[in-house]
């Protein structure tokens, strides 16, 4: 099995995000960057498929030079090689990112592409599925379980109010949802080995693309902080019963939500 994994480097979820002076980007100061949590699931699933079926796991990421760190983490977990696509000073929207990935992947041979269903910085929910369309292959999202047989992949997926099972012919792209697996940590020997694994960097020109076709269709005009929530009222009372009665009264008469 030739398995490709898409991963993005994002600010750790515990980060406090602040708006930079240009009002359209975030302040990079003090942010710790990590592999997108959903992409950890993707790396793990790829390794498990390789462990049972044999093959190679190749990681692809679009990002600045720094994003190589996240690829190295994936290599340390056990992936075989990495490709960093550095768009230089081009600002990519979700579709442009998918176009870069598509250009890199088109000449490759692959059976499965595994991605996260969303990256927790931009929350676009777009790159994985858009890539499948650009490559002309089927995609299955929100996967919590997969099995491979007879040139097909069968996935259990979460949907609102239930689950469904979807089957697709290979090659196919699947996008992970929490519950799929528990990603392994990179071991110390893994980290040592990762340093020697191949990681190549490609530019837009290397992919035979032209920046003109990659101009973002979605541009940030302004970032704003959501209205900050302040603590309201602590319900006082001598007993649980008194407090509960006061709470229900407040919800009914004051907040009018019940």
């Amino acid at each position, binding site marked *: 099995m030739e398995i490709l994994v898409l991963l993005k480097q994002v600010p750790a979820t*515990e980060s406090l995000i602040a708006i930079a002076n240009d009002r359209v980007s975030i302040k990079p100061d003090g942010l710790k960057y990590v592999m997108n949590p959903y992409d950890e699931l993707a790396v793990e699933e790829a390794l498990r498929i390789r462990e049972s079926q044999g093959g190679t796991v190749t990681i692809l990421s679009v990002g600045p030079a720094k994003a190589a760190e996240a690829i190295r983490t994936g290599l340390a977990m056990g992936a075989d090689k990495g490709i960093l696509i550095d768009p230089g000073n081009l600002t990519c929207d979700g579709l442009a990112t998918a176009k870069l990935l598509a250009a890199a992947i088109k000449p490759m041979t692959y059976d499965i592409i595994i991605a996260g269903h969303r990256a927790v910085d931009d929350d676009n929910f777009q790159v994985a599925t858009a890539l499948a369309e650009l490559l002309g292959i089927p995609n299955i999202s929100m996967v919590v379980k997969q099995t491979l047989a007879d040139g097909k992949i069968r996935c259990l997926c979460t949907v609102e109010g239930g689950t469904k099972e979807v089957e697709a*012919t290979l090659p196919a792209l699947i996008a992970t949802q929490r*519950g799929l697996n528990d990603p392994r940590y990179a071991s110390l020997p893994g980290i040592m080995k990762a340093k020697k694994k191949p990681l190549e960097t490609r530019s837009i020109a290397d992919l035979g693309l032209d920046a003109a076709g990659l101009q973002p269709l979605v541009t940030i005009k302004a970032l704003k902080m959501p209205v900050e929530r302040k603590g309201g009222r602590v319900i006082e009372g001598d007993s649980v019963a008194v407090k509960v009665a006061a709470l229900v009264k407040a919800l009914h008469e004051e907040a009018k939500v019940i």
Partner: protein
Amino acid sequence: MTHNVLVVAEQIQGVFRKVTFEALSAGLKLAAQTGGELQALVLGSGIDGLAADLKAYGAAKIMVADDAALADFTTEAYTQVLAGVIEQVQPGIVLLGATTQGKDLAARLSARLNVALATDCVALAVEAGQVVATRPMYGGKILADVALSGTPVIVSLRPNTQTIAPSAGAGTIEKVAVTLGAVRSQVVAKQFESGKVDLTEADIVVTGGRGMGGPDFSAIEALAEALGAAVGASRSAVDEGWRSAADQVGQTGKTVSPNLYVACGVSGAIQHLAGMSSSKVIVAVNKDPEAPIIGKADYALVDDLFEVVPALTAEIKKLKK
């Protein structure tokens, strides 16, 4: 740009999702700004009777793509049909609900048509002829106003963020011919818990965290039932194996914006707050007065949840009688 607004209506098991009516209402307001008309498209199988349910929301035209091959949603088949309809009716704006299916469909469509997509938006407007949408990023820690270029533009709307406003429309119903090319994916099985409101669409959400102390969520379930609420969980409760991952609220789970959010035994970690801060009213039940959630809650009840929750359930039942 052309001015018409096309809403992709989402039905599941023959019932429209609430977010469909929200999208129609938002679409009607947009159409008033662009000077175009509102149109709707429904996809499915055996859904002839269903289209009429959309008539009361101001659409001038309701298109129905009814075909056995569309009985279950697959991204590929639905994208093909939707792309065909878009080519025919040439809308300026395509609106969908930001549901599991809506987000997937919108993403595939954006690539097929090479057009702008803004996902999971909470507001949108037309400014100087361009669609500007507001969307949360970083799990809701920041809001971005984004401008969408080209035609058409695709916007998916976060459930529970748009007001539903019934409005008369001509509502002519038209059949759309369905011709599908290669579809390499299919739904082979499905399982739905009937009557269960999804977290993302629920008016009220009751969440249990690590403070529940174990997998027994019966007190939370009873409170949710009394309130007509959906049940959520913190990531800790999910990681402990007490609840399924589908119940997780937060930056790496679901984002919810109900009218009322009741957090029981949840400390209020930044990742949890990201997923529920846009709730209209927040209630925290926690025995620790220093828990971060207390500082974000409109009403805080500092006490043992095992006493509070059953008492709350009883009090609400009394109120509703």
